[in-house]
């Protein structure tokens, strides 16, 4: 399965570039952190190189909540490894399906945040699809700022609310 690993690494790198490219198009703030994420992606790939592609592994213990920077919809490098495992599982189990729930923090207007939440969910969706998951296995649903994970008006609450939750509807 070494060949498959190489393929995956390439696919992952592509997906990072694609996701980053798509996601920065509409966002203005902190372009610096976008660049930082790109740098981080290289590390993500190399770290991932050491993980075997046992796609049938149980996904129960994987990270299912992925966090985002303010006003950003770029998937962060620290989520790559587990997202890749979700992707491997989904690719190997075509009947499995996930919902990606996109969320925003409370700042800004509600309908705009609905759009932002969807953009985040779709960034994760693209990541999965580039890694071999069929589009029919993934649904993005935005909840905007309507379902905060944490209440409160501080940076720490906000950072926990800017997220995509990956939920299996069938395995």
């Amino acid at each position, binding site marked *: 399965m070494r060949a498959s690993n190489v393929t995956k690494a390439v696919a992952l790198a592509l997906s990072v570039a694609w996701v980053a490219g798509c996601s920065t198009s*509409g966002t203005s703030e902190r372009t610096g952190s976008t660049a930082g994420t790109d740098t981080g992606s290289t590390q993500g790939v190399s770290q991932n190189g050491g993980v075997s592609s046992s796609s049938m592994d149980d996904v129960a213990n994987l990270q299912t909540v992925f966090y985002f920077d303010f006003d950003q919809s770029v998937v962060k490098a620290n989520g790559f490894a587990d997202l890749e495992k979700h992707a491997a599982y989904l690719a190997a189990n075509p009947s499995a399906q996930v919902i990606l729930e996109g969320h925003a923090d409370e*700042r*800004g*207007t*509600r*309908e705009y945040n*609905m759009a932002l939440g969807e953009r985040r969910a779709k960034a994760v969706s693209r990541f999965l699809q580039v890694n071999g998951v069929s589009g029919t296995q993934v649904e993005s649903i935005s909840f*905007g700022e*309507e379902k905060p994970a944490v209440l409160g008006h501080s940076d720490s609450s906000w950072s926990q609310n800017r997220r995509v939750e990956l939920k299996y509807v069938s395995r």
Partner: protein
Amino acid sequence: MKKVFHLWIVSCVLLLSSVVSAESDLAIEITQGIDEPTPVAIVPFAWSGSSALKENIAQIVSADLGRTGLFSMMDPTTMLSFPTQQDQIYYRDWRLSKTEFLVIGRQIPAEGTQIKVEFELYDVLKEQRLLSERVSGTQDNLRDIAHYISDMIYQKLTGIRGAFSTRIVYVTAQQYGEGKVSYRLKMADSDGARPITIRQQSEPLMSPAWARDGSKLAYVSFESGRPAIYIQYLATGKREKVQSFRGLNGAPAWSPDGNKLAIVLSKDGNPEVYVLDLRSRSLARITHHYGIDTEPSWSPDGQSIIFTSDRGGQPQIYRLQLATRQLERVTYEGNYNSRGRLTHDGRFLAMVHRGDDNVFRIAVQDLKTGRLDTLTDTYLDESPTIAPNGSIILYATQKGVKGVLGGVTLDGNVRFILPATSGDVREPAWSPYLQ
């Protein structure tokens, strides 16, 4: 230079203590005022019945007029006399207390719970009667009578139709138990009194919008697990789900003629504004951009739609002429301008504005001069909605850890908040004039 004073309207507090209502969500408190509003006195109305009345009309009228910022209302405890008939008015006394306009009234019992209310408005300086009218109602709609009187007085003194007899809807979210939230769509009088729940569910509700005839609302509900747009008829409570698509279904806005809804769908890949014809059910996409296009709102003449787009790199407000498809960017000042709402004369654009301090506030742009004024000094302000006569903007803001509704006059001179007593209050929508 502007003098800030704190005027706590005691009337509502008194009302709350005398009328124990199951749903007393909102009470008005004025947090800022202006220097030279016109002094007006509303003398407590006479009551010739035997049992106590449920509401104090003079207090309600006084609070209504005070909220507009145009008038300073005299505290009844400082009045030298309480005339209830024209021949009891001593103009000299009222001139001494600097009152410019005076309102007196009488409440007369009629058959059953019927009641007649007579009121008169006087110009103290000219010693002239400006208004004299009789209103009939029941003991149960004294608040309606009061708001009607406020409308009459406001129109006589300003030349502008009053909007006190209107309603607001808003959304509340209240936590109960482990991570459970009860979302409610509520409707109340324009002063926040008499709230009733018109929809309650355990999944989010958002973006309520009034049809221009005041008979129905459109809103977004997640009751199916996904966002969908519903229309709810106020008289019957009957609901209908508007055709929904994969992805976003949001931000409904009624056309002025009530036949169309501007909505936001992401079925084509990213959020775009569409116009749904409610009679033919035909759907026309009106924006075409890979960025976010959302929060549509119609111009009063129905000829154009304003919307938020981040096509320029950050959210700004644009206007699209429907006939020519001509697109124009409207806002330039600030790094985030969104959810625009036009006044009913089309002259002013209220919006959520973020300037260099990165705080979200309510601002108004004069579309004739281009001048933008920030009206609020709180943070996380959103969802501006404008009274049908353009006098006041209601918006959602934070007080402590709670969402509350705030109000501000269009000139920014008077601000008030409607403190929430239950749940997180958000997304006010002011009704049109109601019949």
